[in-house]
């Protein structure tokens, strides 16, 4: 059931630690102040990185779900679940960092005009229901199928909700690459890329850790029921 991973876990953990530290240093000490928003903008590096990572996790969850349904890959159900779980954890962080940024920039802990925040709220609701669904069914082929199907729905919901929220016509949330345009170069770009890579690596490390733990659980259970 367990898939052999090429990169060993301790190496990942160390690499994550190094990169996250580097990102923190860059964000707080090296990157220049943004003309628009000053210091508050720094949390933005993480906010965007975490958001993108969260999307990646949901995407990975959906991909694993597809492999479960289509190729009957025995490891895929658990991997899909763990990926979605990481997605939700990082999604909560998106809401948290977004909220902090909103408070610093605009004085409110929550802004309905922030498309990304609203989108993540919807996704959070959706994937929270994923867990309720999963825990409401006994482990087995049916639970795996239902979870996989739901994960696929989620991944379709992301762009659809995104479109919908934009159609609701609010444009206050700065969309990173279009708004900053030509000014988005040099250290800002470098810092962002480091932060992004750091968060992705962290997510993958946590994914591997949780997966290992869950696999151990499964082995114990299988031994108990043999």
């Amino acid at each position, binding site marked *: 059931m367990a898939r052999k991973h090429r990169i060993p876990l301790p190496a990942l953990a160390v690499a994550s630690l190094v990169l996250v530290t580097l990102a923190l240093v860059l964000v707080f000490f090296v990157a220049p102040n943004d003309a628009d928003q000053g210091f508050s903008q720094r949390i933005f590096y993480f906010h965007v990185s975490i958001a993108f990572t969260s999307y990646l996790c949901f995407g990975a969850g959906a991909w694993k779900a597809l492999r479960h*349904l289509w190729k009957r890959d025995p490891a895929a159900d658990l991997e899909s679940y763990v990926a979605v779980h990481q997605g939700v954890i990082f999604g909560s962080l998106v809401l948290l960092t977004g909220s902090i940024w909103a408070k610093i920039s605009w004085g409110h802990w929550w802004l309905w005009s922030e498309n990304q925040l609203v989108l993540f709220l919807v*996704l959070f*609701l959706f994937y929270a229901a994923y867990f309720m669904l999963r825990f*409401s069914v006994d482990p087995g082929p049916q639970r795996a199928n239902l979870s996989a199907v739901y994960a696929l*729905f989620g991944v379709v919901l992301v762009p*659809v909700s995104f479109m*919908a929220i934009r159609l609701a016509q609010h444009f206050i949330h700065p969309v990173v690459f279009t708004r900053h345009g030509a000014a988005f170069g040099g250290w800002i770009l470098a810092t962002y890329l480091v932060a992004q890579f750091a968060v992705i690596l962290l997510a993958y490390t946590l994914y591997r850790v949780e997966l290992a733990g869950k696999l151990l659980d499964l082995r114990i259970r299988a031994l108990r029921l043999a």
Partner: protein
Amino acid sequence: MSYLSDVRALARKDLLLELRARDTLPAMLLFVVAVFVVFHFSLPEGSSDVAASGLLWVAIVFTALLALGRAFVPEREQRVLDALVLSPADRSAIWLAKSIATFAFLAAAEVVALPLFALFFHGLSGQAIAGVALADVGICAVGTFVGATAVATRARELLLPLLFLPLAIPLIIGGVGASVVADPGRYLGFLALYDLLFGLLCWAAFEYVVVE
């Protein structure tokens, strides 16, 4: 084509069941009227027409939830779903037939609810009604699918709104947009896109929901 005749036979069965039981549709109608009355007292003096339009969508979604919660009850009570799954009919036909039947109930409820809304609050334009029609398709397609999923779990009715509402949010946005904006084309187009995307997804994935 035998697929279509399966769908027809199954949809006919669902409509027949409701005709006999006569409980879902009256409940939906009463619910909608009650909700409108609640709206009247919830909306403060001087609320805009837009606010009332928004609340219309709340009414539609929750009335639909009423129907969706009942959709698989006959199949669940005595596991009749097993017999349908055993038959040579394509499993997605079960979903399609149920969606069509639910759409019929929802439309029947709206035939009463929409004029009543116009009476209580304000008139509804053609674009609003087009929005309602398109959104209904999405609500029934996704709702029926999610209803079958919920029925397979221990939590059942508890799970249905939790699974359904996040998926319904884009529909509500599309519907409200179509009702209040001067140029509703984009919203109606969006609703059609939602219906197409999720309709396809439900159709392809229903197989996996009903087999254990």
